[in-house]
């Protein structure tokens, strides 16, 4: 039985043999780092910090199938999935011999480690290989609210805005689960918050279809891709976008669907300062799918991998195919720039942590705990 299975799947095992050479041991005649010799026959392991089948998983696995062609020595690449904190701890602790790359959905996950007791890593000690510029995030409204965009919900009392989320304690309130209480207060709208056991996009889409909720949020591209028919038919409305990547909204909207306003354009002027402060907790933190390595990995290895990612992301054929798959354009932020973004976001996050904690506790008590 196992023989049959192994022969069936055996082809996929190719290239898995690992040598034990180290970066320091792969020197050329002139003492320089011989990348070809270092990577040849090795397997790069990519730890995807999210479950199989999610957006980050698919994106990373797609990238992983192309990456070896852009690296010296044509190494194997093996993605696997672990939970975020455990996986990032593993990447952080990787020895200098291990080629272990972490992949997470957004920079926010990394700097949130500052306040995570289980996190055994220092976010700013991680070596970033680069990241995708974040996908804009969208607020979706149900058509039965009868509004054109989110600005129209100011003062909305009846029907109330109904929002669902899975929140296990105050510290779990991030992203739209944080955004919506803030918006409801800022827009003085009557809101009802519904605790669900799963707030994945499939569950929330289904609840929207069943009219059990009337507001939801998520990545603009994925929502446009998955809700295209509902948007075209007018059952759902794109209410606003936020965390918009530079260059505006790059996704191709379905025919007949109007471009939504940016949230900052409909937020009351006296709330703008607070809105700016909230960015690290409601958005991606400047990077979406982000690739990183631990601090023990030799710099020359990191540099080769950075160059590999850059070369891949500069390949027109790949970019075209990748963009088609995601229905958007791809902007890759190289490692050094990504590190600067992470430093900046982490600084804002740490600076305002007390404020976030205070709001999170209040939002938990007032909205989500019930």
């Amino acid at each position, binding site marked *: 039985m196992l023989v049959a299975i192994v022969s069936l799947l055996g082809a996929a095992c190719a290239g898995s043999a690992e040598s034990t050479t180290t970066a320091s041991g792969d020197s050329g005649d002139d003492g320089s780092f011989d990348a070809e010799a270092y990577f040849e026959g090795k397997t790069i392991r990519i730890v995807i910090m999210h479950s199989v*089948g999610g957006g980050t998983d698919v994106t990373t696995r797609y990238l992983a199938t192309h990456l070896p062609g852009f690296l010296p020595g044509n190494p194997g690449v093996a993605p696997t999935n672990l939970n975020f904190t455990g996986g990032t701890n593993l990447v952080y602790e990787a020895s200098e011999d291990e080629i272990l790359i972490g992949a997470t959905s957004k920079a926010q996950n990394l700097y949130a480690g500052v306040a995570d007791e289980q996190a055994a890593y220092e976010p700013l000690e991680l070596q970033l290989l680069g990241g995708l510029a974040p996908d804009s995030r969208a607020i979706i409204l149900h058509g039965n609210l009868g509004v054109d965009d989110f600005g129209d919900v100011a003062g909305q009392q009846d029907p109330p805005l109904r929002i669902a989320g899975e929140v296990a304690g105050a510290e779990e309130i991030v992203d739209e689960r944080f955004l919506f209480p803030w918006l409801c207060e800022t827009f003085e709208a009557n809101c009802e918050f519904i605790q669900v056991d799963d707030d994945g996009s499939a569950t929330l889409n289904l609840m929207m279809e069943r009219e059990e909720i009337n507001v939801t949020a998520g990545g603009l591209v994925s929502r446009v891709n998955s809700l295209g028919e509902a948007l075209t038919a007018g059952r759902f409305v794109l209410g606003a976008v936020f965390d918009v990547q530079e260059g505006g909204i790059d996704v191709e909207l379905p025919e007949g669907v109007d471009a939504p306003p940016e949230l900052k354009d409909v937020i009351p002027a006296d709330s703008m300062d607070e809105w700016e402060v909230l960015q690290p907790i409601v958005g991606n933190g400047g990077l979406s799918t982000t690739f990183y390595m631990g601090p023990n990995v030799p710099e020359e290895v990191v540099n080769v991998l950075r160059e590999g990612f850059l070369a891949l992301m500069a390949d027109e054929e790949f970019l075209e195919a990748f963009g088609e798959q995601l229905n958007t354009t791809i902007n890759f932020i190289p490692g050094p720039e990504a590190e600067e973004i992470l430093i900046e976001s982490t600084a804002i996050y740490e600076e305002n942590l007390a404020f976030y904690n205070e709001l999170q506790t209040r939002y938990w008590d007032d909205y989500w705990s019930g």
Partner: protein
Amino acid sequence: MFDAIIEGGKHLGDPAYWGVLAIGLGIATAISLVPGVGSTLMLGIALPLVLVGVEEPAIGIVLLATITGTSNTFDSIPAQLLGIVGSGTQVTFLEGHQLTQKGLGAYSLGAVYAVSAIGGIVGALLLLLLVPIIRPFILSVSFGEIAMLGFFGIVMVSILSYGAMIKGLASGFLGLLVGIVGVHGSSGAERLTFGVYELGFGLPLVATILGLMAVPEMLDLVTSRQPVAPEGSDVSTREVFRGFREGLRRWKMAIRQSLFGAAFGAIPGTGAAVVTWLSYGLGIALSKDRSEFGKGSLDGLLFAESAENAKEAGQALPTLALGIPGATSWALVLVGMMAYGITPGPNILTQHTDIVGLIIITFALANLILTVAALSVTRQVMRLTKIPYPAIGAAIIPVVVVGAFLSDLIFVTLPVLALFTAIGLIMKHYGWPRPPLVLALILAPVIEGNLFTAIAVFGPIGVITRPLTIALAVGVVVSAVFLNRKMRQTMQSVEGASSGQIDPSAHGSSVQVDGNDHTSSVQVTAELAKKSSPALPISRWRLHRPDVVAIGFLTIGVYALSEALTYPGARASTLPIVAASGLTLFSLLQLFMQLRYPERKQGEIMDIGMRTVGTEGAQVAMLKVLVTLAIYVSAIVLVGLKYAGLIFALVLPILLMQGRRRFITALVAAALVGLFTIGIADGLFHVFWPSSLLVSR
């Protein structure tokens, strides 16, 4: 509608389609046979490769749909023949494995192939008919209705408890407690995690079920040193075809159960385990003779197997018609569809007729191909049941342990597997039925999550005034009363006929015996209910070994209750309080019954008993098995999980078998384990193995 078939059929002339179909079926077969490797994991790996390598959208999507849609066709083989139970094969294990032990493995597998093929084809036809009109049905089923389906499952807990009702109910309540372990999603309460971070995500389900059901069975079989099938049992192709004809003869039942499976599969959030258990329950409800269920019933096996294959087409329905995945693996098919620029939804039948048609054709075709393949290889596979189990166990047990680890990739799966193996063995030995525990642990999150979400969405009054919820609630109550009454009548008539005599040497269907002379606990319960004086000897209070189980369960119940009372809010505490109270109450009642009436007999229960109890040489064999397990655990600690299986595979046959043959067996077993752990788990999945003392990661 039928345009779809014509349009889809045009792809049949494309050689790429047949290549893709072969690859998809090959991968699906591997998923079926290897524990811990689910279709989600394989699709996750395959998806990017498909997107890169297959240009034609219809072909690429069909490949993904084939992998997910047919990956459970063969999973009945390891469950039936080797006792390896998976998340969707608990009923198959309960009934089918006992049939194999009775010498009916080939026959029952043949019947399973027939009803599976019918289920697959019925599902495909339903898909064709319902894609355009399924939307209102799917949207009308919300959280409250799914919770009610969970309550129907709870009715099944009481049915599965017949023969030892008090123990069964205690077992069910323990299952509910096991099912709520983890950080509660909406309150943050850490429920029975004992401060273990990894348990915050819940108990690893595959490891828990393998521990409760599969590993105890394997250890028992290893200790018996016998093959699974009894001597003289017919494993010929002729016998497989005889079973196949029997399965075909029951086509009406197969269609009924398939419709049921497809309907439940279409409801997002109901997994394979729930669908098969509920289908089994429905089948029991509609049966006239209920005396054989849980003891190796072909009917029971076919109820579940018919539904399981049809369920896949059911899960495809919301994926295609609404763009809402019917299961996690279908979410990946959805990702693939969107990557190919195909938006699922009501318009898919008009905009991508060929793709829907090709998926339907492929489902039907794949089921026929797999059925033919299964019929032709079963004779060879059945030979496994003729090999002394130490040889099988030497290779399979380490594979199951690694499979359990693969399913979650966290270290805690190993201690969880060990803990539940111990619990499973104790329950198996002392006649505590495990199916109620397994079913309840699967249902706990389904009921709790959906019920409280329904209350949050609709309000308490809103939930109980939804027409479909009311209809289902009435159905639950009616079925509870009807089924329990019928089961009681059946059990009483069986006991009357057999005069309470039990033959523990019967193949695998050996009956749970508490220890000494017993009378039926059903009888006891019934007579107590009548408030008549029980015709049972009342002895002085004295502890016996079986009482320790009840005391253990009572301790767990009391501890859990004290914990549950501290959980914040009704949403986090209601189910734990109910479960812990129930466990405490019924454990106490069982303890009382055992202490007060120690001479009572226990009836046959719906579970597989220990076949080695009282057999010659069993104690020595058990000692050798324990030594091998101790070596295995030590090896895991010292050299790691990756290599420890090799040591287990080498040691077990040498200790348990006789003659020179044992050395060859040990080498073959070690080679097979090595192929799996080093070839597949390490080479293909690139597993991060747990740390060990001597070997670095």
